[in-house]
């Protein structure tokens, strides 16, 4: 009898726990559950206009933009940059009267660099009433979330998810270059400007970004007749000692080392190459942006390093200066390229919503349809490029800028 009773109690407790979870959660998501439900319904069926207006009326006529990225763990630097920069953009927009006269609400959720957690964050934002998604920050998470957002037909723009798989669905657009484009652009630049003829590559095989760029770079290089004399990989578990990779490059007589990696590892490579007395040119992609800010790194070693990047924090145009000053004031550091991408992403959302005359009372799916057609017609002058346009497949058209580090500053190569 006792057993039976305890069984019933356990079952009841667990049930109440699970049931409680559901109701608590919707309540804490700051919209009442009926709103969420109405919106969810309108996504599913997208025929009940009464439902969708109902939902918007209850949410107070604001645009709800959600963001997803890692703000804890190893890749937190990128997620935090995106979160902060988007916050600046949203605040500016709100201060200037919002989008189409409606204020913008912004909510950023952590995904811990885990695909599964990223989808959880997405679902959480949906409960909050998100209408447009700016995220995810990293490629892998972005692919997982894009599959979900396609089901809901929610407009999604990723600031920095650069893999091609991110934009296979028609509702997803990118602000950054795709990895293949960067690889091709880098190979073209090196060949066309006669920077070098024998190239060594050091890349991170465990990183989607790095291996994605390398794969296309290798393809384009062989097509263009650029000789790759050594291609050495490292992995996330093994990224402190690069002497083997550098030695290979030196032995094979490389006159340029291509580094499609992030700046933390690149700074180590530069100092180790210096110790070995390996004097050569280094060439990188947008991941190298930020190398001058690495702690305990002798910035003079980076002299002469070339990189293709859409953004440099010390550019002197008004928009960049204003953004960098504001970011510095609020967060006490220089923004990196991820921050600039996120800032542009928010302004892109603003532009397409204004182009389509979208109001918050429209259903998520209608906003998406309008924004999708708007994306192919807008042209944005952002921090990461002038006159950015998008094709229907979601990739951005903007010119990469080739920078060279001279006198401790990023200088545009003319």
């Amino acid at each position, binding site marked *: 009898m006792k057993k039976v009773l305890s069984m019933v109690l356990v079952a009841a407790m667990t049930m109440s726990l*699970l049931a409680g*979870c559901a109701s608590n959660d919707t309540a804490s998501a700051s919209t009442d559950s009926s709103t969420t439900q109405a919106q969810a319904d309108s996504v599913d069926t997208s025929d009940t206009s009464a439902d969708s207006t109902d939902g918007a009326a209850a949410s107070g006529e604001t645009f709800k933009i959600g963001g997803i990225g890692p703000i804890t763990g190893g890749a937190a630097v990128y997620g935090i940059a995106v979160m902060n920069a988007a916050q600046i953009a949203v605040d500016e927009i709100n201060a200037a009267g919002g989008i189409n006269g409606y204020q913008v609400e912004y909510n950023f959720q952590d995904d811990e660099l885990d695909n599964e957690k990223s989808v959880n964050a997405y679902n959480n934002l949906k409960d909050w009433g998100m209408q447009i998604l700016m995220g995810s920050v990293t490629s892998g998470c972005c692919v997982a979330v894009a599959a979900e957002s396609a089901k809901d037909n929610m407009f999604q723009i990723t600031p920095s998810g650069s893999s091609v*798989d991110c934009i296979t669905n028609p509702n997803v657009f990118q602000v950054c270059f795709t990895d293949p484009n960067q690889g091709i652009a880098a190979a073209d630049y090196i060949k066309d400007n006669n920077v070098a003829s024998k190239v060594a590559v050091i890349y991170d095989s*465990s990183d989607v970004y790095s291996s994605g760029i390398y794969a296309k770079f290798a393809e384009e290089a062989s097509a263009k007749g650029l000789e790759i004399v050594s*291609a050495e990989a490292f992995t996330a578990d093994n990224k402190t000692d690069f002497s083997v990779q550098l030695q290979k490059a030196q032995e094979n007589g490389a006159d340029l080392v291509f580094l499609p990696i992030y700046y933390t590892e690149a700074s180590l490579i530069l100092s180790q190459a210096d110790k070995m007395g390996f004097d050569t040119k280094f060439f990188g992609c947008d991941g190298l942006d930020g190398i001058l800010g690495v702690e305990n790194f002798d910035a003079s070693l980076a002299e002469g390093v070339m990189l293709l990047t859409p953004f440099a924090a010390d550019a002197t145009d008004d928009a960049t200066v204003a953004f960098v000053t504001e970011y510095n004031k609020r967060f006490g550091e220089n923004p990196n390229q991820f921050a600039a991408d996120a800032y542009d992403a928010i302004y892109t959302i603003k532009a397409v919503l204004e182009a389509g005359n979208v109001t918050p009372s429209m259903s998520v799916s209608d906003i998406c349809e309008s924004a999708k057609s708007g994306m192919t017609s807008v042209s944005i002058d952002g921090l990461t490029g002038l006159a950015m346009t998008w094709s229907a497949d979601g990739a951005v058209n903007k010119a990469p800028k080739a920078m060279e580090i001279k006198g401790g500053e990023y200088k545009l190569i003319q």
Partner: protein
Amino acid sequence: MNRFKNNKKFRDNIITYLLVIVIFAVVESLKATGHISSLMKGLLVPVCIYIICAIALNLCVGILGELSLGHAGFMCVGAFSGAFFSKCTAEVITVAPVRFILAIIIGALVASLFGFLIGIPVLRLKGDYLAIVTLAFGEIIKNVINVLYVGKDSEGFHFSLKDMVSLHLKEGGQVIINGAQGITGTPNDSSFEAGFVLIILTLFIVLNLIDSRDGRAIMSIRDNTIASESVGINVTRYKLMAFTISAGIAGVAGVLYAHNLNSLMAQPKNFGYNMSITILLFVVLGGIGNIRGSIISAAVLTLLPELLRGLADYRMLIYAIVLIILMIFNWSPAILELRKKYSVRNFIKNKKTKEVE
């Protein structure tokens, strides 16, 4: 009915089954009436995955008494073999449930094969060697998959450990495992219902194994190896059996995982050392050797960090504190004493004795 009254074990098992079925029914009805948030809906499959994993590890840690720190590795093996199969046959087998069932069987077989191979040398040893070897296994598997490139074209399969370019695929070829980018575009076959069926199946296998002659042999090895050897039990054989089954079940969880998300990558976050520890955490907090406890703790601890999202930055901090409190509540001798004194069971008993008086 007599069996229900007289056999404590049987009663316990029925309670475990009922618990799972009742929760399933409640969640299903909540889903049908729309009283469940999107977040919860998205969490249902992961909860099933981790419950299955926790049961698998409990079989290894609680019943067999061997510590394994590589169950995320077995999950990884199952996930990639299952997803590989599904991706290859997505066009051939168009009936999703059939394909999914085949994928599960393949995932389970491959994972148990790896478990078997690792077990052959290691389970002959005494001591904590299994923990060390499985720990290494998990890391090795993750790294191997990160450099593995597999493609398919009209000529068959191409393998490479270098990069995508050296696969030399023909026109129209398809890269299936793309190194660090893993497998993208696995069909989305997992569902809460499938997860539920798999949990029941897992429970059925594990609980029946425990109650069988083999199960008693396994537990006797845990309790005293020398004594069980002396009565003629083939220690290595039974150890291998339990460990292989445990690995296979973890593989099933992996297949479920692979078919839940669109992109499958072997990252430290999902298949690394930390994941193995998390699964061990479910088992330890739920009670080592207590299958029902594993189910409850896996469910609660998977849901907890997501439900704390409202607390923003303090989320992971609070999660850690909750874990410490749970640990103390479960194992501290002083608390155990208190729990004995003020338990519901005691309360009822006292009442009864008073009534009698």
